[in-house]
């Protein structure tokens, strides 16, 4: 087999570059605990209203017994419930969302809050909102002909007022 000397060098450079990138991403994932949504939690989307967690009066931001915050939401054609949400700045929030019908996606531009919402499975995201202000919370996965109109607002408020 014939491999040119320059080509051999390039192969080593390519392998090195690839492993450096993998290393950096591992560092962030492990060191700063940055992970995508995770977890296999099946739920019956047709009976969300009968479940304890996603029943109507349990939706919204709640303080847990240990002082942490959990935001519970439902995505359904064509809106997010509750439709207006307020969260405190610089505070870790656990967000749990379920779909009542089809595939949806959540994205709040200019924050790290995004996840797919898949019927039959609970999505869980852990994030911290770094800036106060009004943000748009929109559906970013095609969910039917009214998809464009599926959006609501998320307000990040100073810590004291919440």
């Amino acid at each position, binding site marked *: 087999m014939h491999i040119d000397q320059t080509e051999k060098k*390039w192969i080593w450079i390519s392998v090195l570059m690839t492993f450096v990138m993998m290393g950096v*991403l591992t560092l*962030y994932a492990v060191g700063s605990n*940055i*992970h995508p949504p995770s*977890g*296999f939690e099946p739920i019956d989307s047709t009976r969300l209203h009968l479940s304890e967690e996603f029943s109507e009066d349990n939706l919204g931001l709640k303080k847990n017994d240990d002082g942490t915050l959990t935001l519970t939401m439902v995505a359904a054609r064509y809106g997010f419930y509750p439709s207006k949400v307020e969260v405190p700045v610089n505070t870790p929030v656990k967000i749990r969302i379920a779909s009542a019908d089809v595939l949806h996606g959540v994205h709040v531009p200019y924050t790290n809050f995004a996840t797919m919402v*898949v019927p*039959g499975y609970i999505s869980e995201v852990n994030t911290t909102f770094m800036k106060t202000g009004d943000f748009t919370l929109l559906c970013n996965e095609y969910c039917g002909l*009214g998809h464009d109109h599926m959006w609501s607002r998320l307000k990040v408020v100073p810590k004291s007022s919440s």
Partner: protein
Amino acid sequence: MNNNNVNGLSLANFWVGLIAITVGVVLGVYQVVERSGLFPVLDSPTLYFASVSTHGVLMGFVVTTFMIMGFGYYAATTSLKMPLPGKGIAWFGFWFSIVGVLLAAAALLTGNGSVMYTFYPPLVAHPAFYIGATMLVVGSWLWCFEMIWAMNIWKKAHPGEAVPLVHFGNTANAVLWLFTTLGVAAEMLFQLIPWSLGLMETIDVGLARTFFSGTLHAIVYFWLFPAYIAMYTIVPKVIGSKLFSDEMARIAFIMLLVISVPIGMHHLYLDPFQEAGWKFVHMFGTFLVGLPTLFTGFTVIATLELAGRLRGGKGLFGWIMALPWKEPMMTALGGSMMMLTFGGFGGLVNASYSLDVMLHNTQWITGHFHLIFAGTTIIMYMGIVYHMFPRMLGRSLYSSSLAVKQLWLWFVGMLVLTLPWHYLGILGQPRRISSAPYDSPLVEQWIPHDIAMIVGGFILLISILMLVFNLYKTHGSAAANLVMEYAEPIHPAPRVPALLNGFGFWSVVVVIYLISSYGYPIAQFFIYETFGATTWGV
């Protein structure tokens, strides 16, 4: 003319691809105009989402499959220097695929298939849509068997000799495609088709998405393969150079086959129902697939430099200007490499486990795959048809200078279209929306980029019409006796190790890798109790 029996077959496949791409571009232009929101009179989600679904199916499945089949048949017979075995099977595959396309088109064009080319259950389309798409894939499997069969016949007649690189690449792609389509075939046969026919009441969306993710990444390499084959074997011949390394090309082809199939879970980074650990493992696999592309980049640039210096180019970069830029194939390659570089950088961002969250399902993603597919891949397909049509027809190309202008327009149009899309994605614009009724501070900053994408769309429309016109006129241009020849390597390799001359061993490796990376993520849906989703119309 070349002594082969597939000119008509290849031309038929190529023309189906060319007609499909023209229709796809027209739909694309409508879509950029509609989604910009600058012309409220056009606003229609019904029409828009039917169009987006049709555009995706045409470009992703129809154009690619037929162009790859056309390329494969012609490249096989001209590189192996033997007629195609079982030509009737190839024609049957062609017509079977056509019937599939027409069935799917009937559903799509009547608004009964507006579920995107990614299918998105539990939104349901008419069964004709799923059955038609499946028939297209089954038709393409016959092409795979033809490629593998031709290689085996050639090897029997030439014991111990290295399979010509062109057909080694074609066969690698055929084997790749058989593995790639396992995911979509499982989703279709066990889920979508029986469910759309009413035989199942609910569908497990998590399982369906996991199956489809197995197809979603490697399909891109199925599309890219003919482009890479042309870069290694046709480009050097056209520009008067030699292939830098035959063996490295084989290694790159094998790596593409082995590495690209079992890594699709980066499409599911933001999905629940798969644990982050699996996503993390698939990220490593995804980064490895950059390696064969980096190796290809080196070989191609080295081949170009050799040609440039042979033609009298001097200095560190002077050889670039000495290259034969008036050759359509050279222009196609230049544009392709540039777009591959941009698109490759973007791809590294998408592949990053912790960065993807900010770009997932935004217009950035649309920008990324248009650069890699509609840019890098399609511009090489254009170079290929400009090169092969005259040889198949025994006539000279109608206008070489028109072809070069057309390729430059495609390159510029694609950048004007996709660079703003990347930026729009960073600004939070979702993909697949027909209007933007969100808060105005968010939407207002999108407008200048929306205008740019419309300009890009029209440039691409002009370009594609120039391509079709040129090829149509070539059917009636002056007779010419052009031979289809492929590049010789600098160091001829008449014999190569058995591992670089076949796919038996590598297929076993793929199966083991697939089972280890997808085994549990699929099995979990059967181990634990899950709840299917009920059926919804669009």
